[in-house]
């Protein structure tokens, strides 16, 4: 399986939500400053010179080193989806309410819709596309299929990334820890209890292997 780099063990609740939110505020401030320098109101992407409006970032996505030009206002989610065409992470609310955009950044589950792309510079990002090794699915992915841990499947990539982060932190979570660990993700089809089953099953399997 993919071993995401783990930062530190801790109680998992809404995980990196606050971290992501802080990043969002910082990102907004940065965007304002650059736009202010150009003296323009709005139209940032259109009228600013590329030197001011673009920043080149180097980061690893699913193990691959990439260099991408990003705008300060762009979120990591936008860069993943629109520029890299990695559409596993979904934009469901765009404001850190639902977890559909969850990815791993240096092993931590993060809402990529709130994470400024510029801050991904130098980081390791894993998306749901990067979990399987060739045709061999990650045990969490396999368990979601076996336990039917989804219905429409749109929130599933986010749930899978949160589950992987949870199991990296707590390899044998209690039912309450599973509930809490997934509390930052919303499933509107309402399949939470099937998702718990999938996570518990993956946990067992991963400890056996």
């Amino acid at each position, binding site marked *: 399986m993919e071993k995401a780099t783990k930062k530190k063990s801790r109680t998992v609740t809404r995980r990196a939500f606050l971290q992501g939110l802080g990043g969002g505020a910082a990102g907004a401030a940065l965007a304002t400053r650059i736009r202010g320098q150009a003296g323009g109101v709005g139209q940032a992407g*259109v009228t600013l010179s590329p030197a001011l409006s673009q920043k080149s970032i180097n980061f690893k996505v699913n193990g691959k080193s990439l260099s991408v030009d990003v705008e300060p206002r762009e979120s990591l989610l936008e860069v993943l989806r629109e520029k890299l065409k990695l559409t596993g992470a979904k934009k469901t609310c765009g404001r850190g309410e639902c977890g559909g955009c969850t990815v791993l950044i240096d092993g931590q589950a993060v809402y990529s819709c709130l994470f400024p792309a510029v801050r991904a510079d130098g980081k390791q990002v894993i998306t749901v596309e990067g979990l399987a090794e060739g045709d061999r699915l990650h045990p969490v992915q396999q368990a979601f299929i076996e336990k039917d841990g989804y219905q429409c499947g749109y929130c599933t990539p986010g749930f899978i990334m949160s589950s992987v982060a949870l199991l990296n932190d707590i390899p044998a979570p209690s039912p309450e820890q599973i509930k809490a660990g997934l509390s930052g993700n919303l*499933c*509107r089809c*309402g399949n939470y209890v099937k998702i*718990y089953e999938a996570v518990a099953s993956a946990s067992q399997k991963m400890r056996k292997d």
Partner: protein
Amino acid sequence: MRKDAYPEDTGLDYLEMAKGKEPQGKEAQPPVQTDFKLIGRPTPRIDGHLVVTGRAKYTHDIFFKDMLYAKILRSPHASAEITSIDLSAARSLPGVKAVLPLKEGRVKYEGEQIAAVAAVDENTAEEALRLISVEYKVLPHVVSPEKAMAEGAPRVHDSANVEKLNEYSRGNIDQGFAEAEVTFERTYRTAIEIHHPVETHASIAKWDEDALTVWDSTQAIFSVRDGLARALGIPATKVRVIKMYMGGGFGSKLSFNEHTVAAARLAKEAGRPVKIMLSRKENSLCVGNRPSTRITIKGGAKKDGTLTALSLKNYTCGGVARGNSGSEPLIDIYKCPNVKVEELTVYTNTGGGRATRAPGHVQGTFALEGFMEEFAAELGLDPLEFRRKNYTTSNLGGTGIVYSSKGLDKCYDIGAQKIGWDRRNKRPGDGQGKKRRGLGMGSQIWWGAGVPGTLADIKLHRDGSVEAVSGTQDIGCGTRTYMATIAAETLGLEPQDITVKIGDTTYPWAPISGGSLTAPSVGPAVRDAALKAADHLKDMAAKKLNVPAADIVLAGKKLYDKNHPENAIVFKDLVGQLSRETVFHGERADLPAGFAYNTFGAHFAEVEVDTETGRISVLKHVAVHEVGRILNTLTAESQVVGGITQGISTALFEERVIDESLGKMVNPNLQTYKIATSMDMPEIVPLFVDLADPRINNLGNKGLGEPPRIPSSAAVANAVYNAIGVHLREIPMTPDKVLKALRDKEAGS
């Protein structure tokens, strides 16, 4: 410019579809096979690997070269007259490729479309919207149904704000009440809730000369195709609609949308593909909601619990559109000779209602089953015994035709046993302490017979590969998987051997995916096509193996003589001997006349109410459904789990809140519009009375989409009543309402 070109979607049209046509068929189908090997087992989804690796393509995930992004400017006012609109600044913004006015004259709700732009990226489109200047003359608005009904309220439409929606009667209601020894009356209220599918509505429009292809996040590709053809004034043959994967709909994606038409027109003007993805706020405002209801039920009964009369009056509100009829459960589910129903819809200046998973039945069942629970207490009867006392095996409350199959009694037996019904408070509110527990239940009826005429093909390729094809939609219920399972079962293959093709209007016609229609429509059509293919192959094998076709068995990827299994030919080899690839057309046959076809179920909930905080925790929820044969127990369980989760969410959290003075929604996001999360889940027990209906179709299956959604909120509300001795009669049951009810009870009011 088009003016009000798009009729409002209404729950009523959808109910007509869900109910289906009057059964037309003259005779029963051939007997339903009972010894299936694959059907009825827990089969993991055949496309699961695409979903869990992020490779399943939803409309949001599709890109084209030179694709533009569209955004729609929407009314900030609940009621206003557009006096001028200036699009020139937006048009001249670099990167903007097309701008369209969409509205003139009066706007009637916050979020109504005004104009649309298409630009090279989303940010530029957003900028362009800000450059559109619109002058409004703001008009008086009304957003609450109570105020809309008042004398002198601002008119939402040209006609009155209150309009007749539905009426029904049978027997003699006055005589029914005269015969009653006890009469009882209560009023129940439900709030407006928002569908909030996780994938917001989205469309991509792409023209190739005069032909339009649209990728749409929809539950109804053929409705979108026909709607677009009408709106654009082009033949249906020039429109193709594709839906690969869709991130939830729950009724909000059943009809074609204004924004899809806008995307098509912008794409035409710009000469480039156009993608539109609604925001969460737009999803909250203008693509539907579950209408509110205020339902008053009056019942009459003998002291032994025999119902003599039931009357229902419903004031329902679906904003600028019609509300929901909530009377069907009351009309059908209990034996009662005298019934009267009057339903009125109230218009307000808010976004229009749409079908929402089990429209009307969720609200009507909350009211009816709350009433049954309270009436039982008034009569001093066990609420389950009261329901059994009025059980019926024919529809229209025992005055109509018999049900083809009805397993509700078995649902009661199993559910009561699983929840431990004996543990309930014998009188509501008997429990003591700060945290009080209670048990409650709810009964369910819905249609779910499917649509005769649904088409599916089985295509055999000469390399031995097999396709199952139908223009249906998989909206998360596992359609692809049961199509593959049915084809594999019939042809002696495995589900993985079948390539399923759905979600494209170039495929054979299938109905909307809503109203519990899909499985009992598409399943039998696939079965019919596969049976024809199997017959053809058996004839071929009979000649090769020199035995009568009747003795040929299709199993284990072979065809063999049942008396001499070693006399066999491999499926792939036989198919390779076809002279060409061969298509077998299947059709879902008519329903035999003379019977009623319905689905049934019962839910039992256990809750704990914290009397100090007013917080309700659902501890356990048992659901037992009778929906004919279960095609796939694994995905069927998920549908039930989802129905319960959504029902708990409705019972405890969900409510669209509109500021009365501004006429604007104050919770148009997932942070302030509360839905159930993983922290709110009880232990869930999904069970089935797995009875194949003997005549409904060639599989004996009924639909399962709506049933588990229908009694879940009612069961939770009734459990709260059993716990604290006072029925809130209003959902969502937020802590403030619980505390107020407890205070009122103590004060003796």
